């Protein structure tokens, strides 16, 4: 239920952004009502994503019904922005893909361009959410957040060393690093806010 409490917050933020962006709605229309199941192996979580009635629905579920399923560790999922790696990952057994790949791509293309200021949004909704459950959720968020940060850093460093050095223009690399720094600072901001909220609970 914890996962669903968190996802309900994420869902609200995403839908808020979605309502302001008609082009995003157009892009998602192609995959309306299709079920994408994302299995995060090391978290033992399955997340169902559906775009229906102009809303994104996100549920943590045990159900195994889907039109498309991706299953991998969180590390692997976070590197998925690069589609060229897909076949390689599948061959290495790090990733499992079933069903209609277009659905996964549809979601990822649509959201790749989203620029969401998570801390800002969360703080807006947080006052709204059920108090007791939220307190628990925040604690998990805090530890997961710290883990995520570590994992993100590791993944990004590996990416920089192994992949980017040979394939990317130095200017792009600079920009990438810049984004990386922004991401880091956003994550620490979020962490600080969570800490502050926890103290005030």
């Amino acid at each position, binding site marked *: *239920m914890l996962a*669903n409490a968190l996802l*309900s917050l994420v869902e609200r933020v995403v839908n808020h952004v979605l309502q302001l962006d008609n082009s995003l709605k157009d892009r998602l229309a192609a995959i309306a009502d299709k079920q994408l199941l994302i299995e995060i192996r090391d978290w033992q979580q399955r997340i169902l994503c559906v775009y229906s009635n102009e809303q994104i629905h996100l*549920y*943590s579920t045990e159900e195994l019904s889907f039109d498309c399923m991706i299953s991998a560790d969180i590390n692997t999922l976070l590197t998925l922005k690069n589609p060229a790696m897909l076949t390689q990952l599948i061959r290495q057994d790090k990733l499992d893909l079933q069903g209609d790949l277009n659905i996964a791509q549809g979601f990822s293309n649509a959201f790749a361009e989203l620029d969401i200021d998570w801390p800002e949004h969360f703080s807006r909704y947080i006052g709204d959410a*059920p108090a*007791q459950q939220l307190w628990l959720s925040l604690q998990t968020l805090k530890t997961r957040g710290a883990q995520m940060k570590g994992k993100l850093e590791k993944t990004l460093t590996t990416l920089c060393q192994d992949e980017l050095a040979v394939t990317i223009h130095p200017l792009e690399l600079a920009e990438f690093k810049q984004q990386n720094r922004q991401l880091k600072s956003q994550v620490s901001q979020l962490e600080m806010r969570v800490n502050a909220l926890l103290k005030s609970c």
Partner: protein
Amino acid sequence: MNENQEKTTHFGYKTVAENDKASMVADVFHSVAAKYDVMNDLMSFGIHRLWKRQTIASSGVRKGHRVLDLAGGTGDLTAKFSQLVGDTGQVVLGDINSSMLKVGREKLRNLGHVGNIEYVQMNAEALPFPDNSFDLITIAFGLRNVTDKDKALRSMYRILKPGGRLLVLEFSKPEQEILSKAYDFYSFNILPKMGQLVANDSESYQYLAESIRMHPDQETLKDMMEDAGFEQTSYQNLTGGIVALHRGFKY
């Protein structure tokens, strides 16, 4: 034995004639309908939303499905299902109580949910649908108000399609003694006072507390579902068993 002795049942802690229970339950919900949503949020600290979310996450519902939200009251579940089944699906919001249905209909209309929702007054014990009509039936915080629960479960079984599932979300027995005690204190001392303050109706909320205590525990309800014909029955405790989500299939 007296042949004419009236059959009795529980109304909260009181034992009442079976024929009277339905109308007494009706009075409760007529009197709380207008304040129902506010009270729900207050009484459960908003957690009822998460319990309902968990129900939807376990529903396997998808576009084109036909869903019955039984004892659906003000339609929280119906609202979500209506989005998920899309224009090729249908959701029936069923309730025995016209006041609750009316509040539900107004709320859902204001939220912009129209088109695939039908509002039908019905008694869970004798559902007015042909056999094999629904992919999913949910009954959230409704079963404990029903007089003959076994009959209601059989009726739900009958109208489910083969492969369809029933989800029962209901107050249950907390797993830990200490939580159980705290919860008892809350529901018998604080709940009725809140009911008095907000809805000016402590009796209805006294009934609520009592009916929760009289409701079958997790294993008993699971057995009842099996007796009614459901297969692969299971349950998940939510918030330490204060609430349980039961699931069963018809094959």
